[in-house]
């Protein structure tokens, strides 16, 4: 083998290792979800889920409040994403397309605000909502999610808008559009994919939450899917088939949405961060 072939082989070996580390855990989750109990509890791992069973999925879905939790999660996610998208779009427009006093301060604030950990703010937020009688209410949890989804959305959308050449709108205005008309006819169609990407990424942020739902929602019929999933693991002698089936179900919406927008979010985040 030549030196060149050797390096190539080395790179490919490293690539296989990366593939194993990233994909095997996911494969193992899916496979375990389809295994029979005796194959899961085997000291020698059974690599393939053959013969398979749907029993784990059945028992995961049959858990109390599953459907109610799905509904709660959907309500919370949709409300949070819609509210934050509307507010963030207007704010991002201002931050990306206008010169005004305090613009630099605003941008700095947007960065700093995202650094304040929710893990710290959950205490006053809990006490505030408790005082207003809004703990254990879906409205309270939507408001809490906005604390991190809204700054994130403004920041990301600003990145998308900054990336659209201003000259396009200028050309439209030379051709007789108002500034607002140029926004609606030129900028808005171009930024629409960015809006979708931001919405989907906000969805994932909310879907991923555990802490807030755990602190704010107490009664079983108010909980979201994240709590449903975590409730599998608390019992002694975890029932791994059910946990893996539940984890798979929980991951599916996030994965589907994520695959739709992954590419855009990388460019949006970094572009927004490096361009003035």
């Amino acid at each position, binding site marked *: 083998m030549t030196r060149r072939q050797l390096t190539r082989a080395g790179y490919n070996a490293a690539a296989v290792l990366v593939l194993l580390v990233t994909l095997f855990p996911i494969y193992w989750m899916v496979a375990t979800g389809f295994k029979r109990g005796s194959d899961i*509890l085997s000291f020698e791992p059974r690599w393939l889920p053959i013969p398979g069973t749907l029993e784990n999925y059945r028992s995961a879905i049959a858990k109390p409040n599953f459907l109610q939790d799905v509904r709660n999660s959907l309500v919370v996610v949709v409300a949070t994403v819609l509210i934050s998208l509307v507010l963030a779009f207007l*704010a991002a427009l*201002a931050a990306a397309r206008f010169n005004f006093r305090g613009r630099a301060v605003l941008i700095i604030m947007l*960065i700093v*605000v995202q*650094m304040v950990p*929710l893990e710290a703010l959950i205490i006053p937020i809990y006490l505030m909502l408790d005082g207003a009688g809004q703990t254990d209410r879906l409205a309270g949890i939507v408001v809490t999610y906005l604390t991190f989804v809204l700054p994130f959305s403004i920041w990301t959308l600003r990145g998308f808008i900054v990336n659209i050449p201003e000259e396009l709108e200028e050309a439209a205005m030379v051709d007789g559009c108002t500034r607002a008309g140029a926004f609606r006819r030129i900028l808005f169609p171009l930024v629409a994919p960015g809006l979708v990407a931001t919405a989907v990424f906000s969805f994932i942020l909310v879907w991923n939450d555990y802490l807030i739902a755990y602190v704010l929602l107490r009664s079983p019929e108010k909980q979201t899917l994240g709590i449903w999933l975590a409730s599998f693991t608390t019992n002694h002698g*975890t029932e791994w088939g059910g946990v893996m089936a539940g984890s798979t179900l929980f991951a599916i919406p996030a994965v589907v949405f994520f695959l739709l927008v992954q590419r855009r979010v990388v460019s949006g985040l970094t572009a927004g961060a490096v361009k003035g």
Partner: protein
Amino acid sequence: MKQTARPDPFGGELAPPRTPPTARPATDLAGRPAVAPRPPGSRRRRLRPLVPYALLAPALLVLAAILGFPMYRLVSLSFQRYGLKELFAGRGTFIGLDNYREIVTDPFFWTVVARTLVFASVAVGLTMTLGTLVALLLRNLGRRMRVLVTAGLVAAWAMPTLTAISIWQWLFDFEFGVVNWLLTRLGVGGYEQHNWFDQPLQGFAVIVLVVVWAALPFVAITLHAGLTQVPAELEEAARVDGAGPWQVFRHITFPVLKPVFLILATLSTIWDFKVFTQIWVMLNQRPSREYFLLGIWSYSESFGVTRYGKGAAIAVVMVVLLLLVTSFYVRQMLRAVGP
């Protein structure tokens, strides 16, 4: 500037573009002739500078209410005694710096701070180092292999945190976990029935693994995207001049990547410094005190033993430490963003 007669949804004419547009034929993008100009009204002109503020107002008002006020409340809580009694009464008792005094005189505080700092630096260091290596690897792979590895990274990235946690819990299960089986098979030692969470050091190793596994794809893919900005000729020229791989990376590749690298390092620091869910759920919502980081400690003082004042003080310390740690990056980032 020409205007159409259409109602303006933003309630006023917007500020003129920064660069004066050059003359172009008076048709819109679809090629239709432009509508006849109309002189802008004086009221519109007066309102023009207010437009950006009007656009910002709803978002800023909401943020002030749900973010600004809790931030103020967090600080004020940290100067109060606020327990079960105060919770029922709805107001705390001002006790000055007592909460802070109690924390800093507790040796446990310094243990937790040190533990949090070490945890975050190990996790961030591993994430950034491995992420850079994988990004560089992606560049050196053939097309098919690169697509495969990217797909694997994206799959891991897409996993929700809670899913990732239960996957790794299962892999590290003491009885039937694949990791114990593999280590025993490889002859590393007797890992049958080995409980990784008995010893905090090993437990934290597993937690760092979960955190890094989840964060690495984002870092690697973003850095790989950044690598396409590095001019290949420059690297080639350096190589021709006799620079080794490390020197090429250090002097050519890294400077171009630096802005992206800083952002990623900042984000990772923020995420890893306040890590909560991974520890809390991995240890079945009952972590022992050896597993406390600042976030967990603050949570357990507040919601576990209902001492919200002390919990708030710990949280304030956590925020201040986080700001100190990240201020270095943020200064560099702001330099990149410019005024």
